[in-house]
């Protein structure tokens, strides 16, 4: 009984999880609602109808907006996408002049968008997850609260400020590192090329991007880590696992899907970032993997739009909107993948307890740990029905 309440108290941080467990285990908190509902149903109050209408309206409204944005992008972008880029005089002028077709133009931009976001993710995701783990499992309670608050505050910093910070602080800060990477690791293709002198590299941009995606990765991972069943954690500890082994055997397997979705949502944020990138990186519309050069940084879609929109002619503007359409599609795809992973993960952990994901890392040759894992798994299968019947 005490086990269940502790699990409940932890998981109460997330309402979605709550409703899931309601369906499987009849909990004290869930019972009053069905009992009271027949009474309420007999009297329909106007406030109910109004609120229902408002919330339904809001839900429809957001769909209409999304569809409207998609429609706007398609209608506005189409003329440039289907235009003949080789012969059209408007497109043969200015920033679109060097490209033979819309796809030749958007290709490098799309690559740059994904490349910068990927570097940011490689740099930011481990740190974000580390912070989340510290907050949920290592930090003293008071510090954890403060730290969580500070990380969330990071999300409130405007990207222009991040951009200025990137130009004034991060660029010069990374210069020695860029030099070092170029000198000693220049044989690795991505660190090659003519090394930067001003620091205006995709590396500097990605470092700032990594900081910008920290809050979203941290806050989602933290929530997931906090939902790890206390029973699993205590079982692991009881079997002699250290704190790290407990995290590895009980927390990570449970939170795997949550971590993936947090990372993908961070990726979505990184893909659409505009101002900081536009300010920090010295861009070129080319496909380049180099990260410490001045003149060979792949431009991103969002920054390209921001930089060229003011001087674009009508058709060029439509070309930029066309690139925006592609960014929209990519971001939407990333977010949908993230959501589907979340929902698949939660149905696994919340619904069918037996189909628990395997631990991420299976230690070999460590008898205690293997034993722990097996026992935790056994305990887990046993705990499900037991908890339900209690």
């Amino acid at each position, binding site marked *: 009984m005490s086990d269940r309440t502790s699990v409940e108290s932890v998981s109460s941080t997330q309402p979605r999880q709550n409703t899931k467990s309601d369906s499987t285990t009849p909990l004290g908190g869930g019972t009053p609602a069905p009992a009271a509902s027949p009474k309420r149903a007999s009297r329909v109050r106007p406030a109910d109808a109004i609120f229902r209408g408002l919330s339904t309206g809001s839900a429809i409204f957001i769909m209409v907006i999304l569809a409207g944005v998609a429609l706007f992008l398609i209608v506005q972008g189409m003329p440039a996408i289907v235009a003949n880029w080789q012969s059209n005089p408007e497109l043969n002028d200015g920033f679109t002049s060097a490209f033979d077709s819309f796809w030749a133009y958007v290709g490098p931009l799309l690559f740059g968008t994904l490349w910068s976001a990927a570097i940011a993710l490689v740099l930011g995701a481990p740190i974000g997850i580390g912070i989340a783990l510290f907050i949920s499992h290592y930090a003293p309670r008071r510090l954890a609260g403060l730290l969580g608050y500070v990380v969330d505050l990071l999300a409130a910093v405007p*990207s*222009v400020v991040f951009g200025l910070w990137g130009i004034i602080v991060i660029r010069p800060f990374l210069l020695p590192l860029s030099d070092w990477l170029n000198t000693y690791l220049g044989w690795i293709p991505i660190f090659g090329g003519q090394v930067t002198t*001003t620091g205006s590299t995709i590396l500097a941009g990605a470092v700032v991007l990594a900081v910008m995606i920290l809050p979203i990765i941290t806050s989602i991972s933290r929530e997931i880590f906090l939902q790890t069943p206390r029973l699993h954690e205590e079982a692991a500890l009881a079997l002699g696992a250290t704190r790290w082994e407990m995290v590895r055997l009980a927390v990570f397997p449970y939170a795997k899907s949550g971590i993936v979705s947090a990372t993908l949502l961070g990726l979505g944020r990184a893909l659409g970032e505009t101002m900081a990138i*536009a300010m920090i990186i010295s*861009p*070129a519309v080319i496909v380049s993997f180099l990260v410490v050069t001045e003149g060979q940084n792949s431009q991103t879609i969002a920054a390209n739009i921001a930089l060229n929109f003011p*001087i*674009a002619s009508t058709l060029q503007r439509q070309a930029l909107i066309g690139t*925006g359409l592609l960014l929209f599609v990519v971001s939407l795809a990333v977010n949908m993948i993230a959501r589907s992973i979340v929902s698949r993960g939660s149905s696994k952990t919340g619904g069918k307890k037996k189909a628990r994901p395997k631990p991420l890392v299976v230690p070999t040759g460590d008898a205690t740990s293997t034993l722990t894992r097996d026992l935790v798994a056994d305990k887990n299968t046993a705990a499900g029905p037991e908890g339900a019947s209690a």
Partner: protein
Amino acid sequence: MKFKNVATAGAILVASAIALSGCASSTPEATASATPSAAAVDYSSLSGTITAGGSSAQAAWTTAFTAQAKGVTINYDKSQGSGGGVTNWTAGSYDFAGSDSPLTKDQQTAATLCGPNGAINLPIYLDGVAIVYNLAGVDKLNLSAETLAKIFSLAITTWNDPAIAAENPDAKLPATPITTVTRSDGSGTTKTFTNFLSQTAKDVWTYPADSAWPIAGTSAQKGTSGIVQAVGAGDGTIGYADHSAIGELKAASVSVKGKDFVAFSPEAVTSAFEAAASTTDTGIKGDLAQTVDFTAISGTEAYPIPLVSYGILCTTYKDAKQKELTTAYLGWIGSDVGQKVAAKNAGAAQIPEKLLTEITASLALVK
């Protein structure tokens, strides 16, 4: 999302512009209050709001004008850039547009809001494109148009290149690689500079004049402030920027022909502009769009890269009150006093007097 981005772009430009003009902003009122009698026209009876936007250079006058025309509010959005200014003006949102290049034929055709008589370009702001650099141990640098074209087309890659050394016999040039810093966003400064290169160094610079930088491989920065920041931060950097915004950076002396290198000064810009600019015949009465022939600039008194910025307005206004306000404001800018204010606030050069007289005549034609 796009609008948010444009808005943020606006925000930073405004923020940086405020920061840049922070020290200058105390002077306009002083200037204005010191010379109210010099202004022949009394603006105090005017009231209303002028909405305009475009080239960031033209924000220099608003405070000084509203100081003497107390009833007038001027909303000049300098975050738009020249292109955005013209677009918004064509859409009818602005009373006039500030732009670093005159209307193209297409833009003139698109400006249907002006009626059959079209729109006119008035050259109201004159400055120079400065060649800024940062190179340890070199405080004075001479560069000819041809060498500049080689540097900016990335044909020359180190500072001790013979072409640079030949023009700077006294300087100790290190073997530092050259980092050329250009604009990543579209800009009237870029257009003027590429125009200069394409006219004066035809053999080396084969690209047309354009507001977007044509060559990949440079360090491309957002905005004049981005260039100034990047040039200042690196060693061996060189870039181009509107002279009024270069701050503490060193600027090279420039020559068209390879001799008589001239450093920037407002007077040198004015005299170069007098020598090189001529009014383009666009067929519209009162239009003062200028064609600049950079090859005509020579001598030790003329700085070779003048940068001119236009006020673009309709010849026919639908609203008589807006017409009165706009022509009063632009007329004041095109007066001797207005030009002095720009010189004081932004370090700009003065438009030649002959042209100022023509501006007044053109404004009188506006209905």
